[in-house]
């Protein structure tokens, strides 16, 4: 019974990831993001021209932000099992996720606000759009700490047969480091570290995709081995 719930929660991550991708890409057509250097008038025209797609895409983004939590709860359950009764890293993970993933909800909210009134002045639409993109990319900062915490917790597992495979721990550390360039997006409007750049957007986006799929893969493997059974 318990393992069914765990499986459902884990799969919920895949559902959330897919919804987010559909929302941001074919619906809102914000993938890749609008160039930060785009003049306010062109940004505003983009929102006016794609209003319905952006509004519907934003609904999916906001919905998925909540669906991530069952998945993250499944991760936390594994971390708790690894750490036992004294579990500071699990608590840290839970708290970081609680505010790190909320930004996804707010990103959807600001996309909605930007597209909601097409007759708003260009500057207002462009500013709301800026906030939406920052909320979408900046969570790299909490995600970095979240990955490091997860990595350390998995590597701290002293069992002969670890709850989660040790390579997953190192993979989390790697993901964390590669998300870091997202932290600098506020400094640039062009180049590789701008929010649509190779290193601040594409690398983290691909790495996040790899991380997500490998987490689901490894967690399903551990559920199959029934590692959570027994106290």
């Amino acid at each position, binding site marked *: 019974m318990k393992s069914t719930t765990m499986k459902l929660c884990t799969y919920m991550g895949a559902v959330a990831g897919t919804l987010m991708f559909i929302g941001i890409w074919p619906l809102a057509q914000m993938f890749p993001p609008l160039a930060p250097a785009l003049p306010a008038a062109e940004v505003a025209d983009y929102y006016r021209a794609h209003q319905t797609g952006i509004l519907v895409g934003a609904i999916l983004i906001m919905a998925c932000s909540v669906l991530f939590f069952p998945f993250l709860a499944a991760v936390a359950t594994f971390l708790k099992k690894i750490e036992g009764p004294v579990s500071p890293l699990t608590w840290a993970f839970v708290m970081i996720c609680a505010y790190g993933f909320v930004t996804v909800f707010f990103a959807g909210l600001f996309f909605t606000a930007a597209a909601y009134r097409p007759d708003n002045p260009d500057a207002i639409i462009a500013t709301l759009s800026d906030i939406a993109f920052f909320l979408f990319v900046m969570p790299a900062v909490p995600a970095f700490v979240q990955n490091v915490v997860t990595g350390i917790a998995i590597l701290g597992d002293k069992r002969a047969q670890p709850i989660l495979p040790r*390579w997953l721990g190192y993979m989390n550390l790697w993901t964390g480091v590669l998300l870091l360039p997202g932290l600098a997006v506020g400094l640039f409007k062009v180049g590789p570290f701008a929010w649509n750049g190779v*290193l601040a957007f594409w690398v983290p986006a691909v790495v996040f995709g790899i991380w997500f799929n490998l987490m689901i893969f490894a967690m399903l493997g551990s559920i199959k081995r029934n590692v959570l059974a027994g106290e």
Partner: protein
Amino acid sequence: MTVQPLSELHGRARSTRGHVPGEEGVWVFIGGDLVAFAVFFITYAVARRQELALFESAQTLLDRRLGLLNTLLLLTSSLFVAQAVAAVRRHDRRARPLLLGAIALGSSFVIVKAFEYSAKIAQGFTLNSNSFSIYYYMFTGIHLIHVLIGLAVLCFAASRFDRNGQMPGGVALIEGCGAFWHLVDLLWIILFALLYLL
């Protein structure tokens, strides 16, 4: 005549047979990091081709002597780490001093870098001065984060010695830490060549 402890013989056999140093998982991280930096370097190469004149003139502003000094500091510290790994394998008490030496050299790298950054900023060469400066500060900055993580890793390894300067069963641990430090060194050598020399 001294009898070699069994674990030492085991360690020798391990080291001569060409095993994977550290635990295998470390190489997931190192391989992944190398892939990421490969993407960094390709991005840089493409950007440099697009604005060749600007990059070449901006690159001459960098202080090659400080870059070379930092290269030597990291190379020497890597040598110290390699010696420390070998010392742990043969249960030599010199392992910890060697490791502390590597940490001192790594810390000097950070200090030199701080001087280099502040001198550049004083000259008006800042983050958004031109497209080269973005790469210079961001790449060396991300590398610097690696150095700091590497120093933390080495300090962690140095804290694992017992009172007799031994690290019982710590061969995999120090090999893993050493492998990461060599990665930091390797990345810097490529960065130094790309940013300062090319």
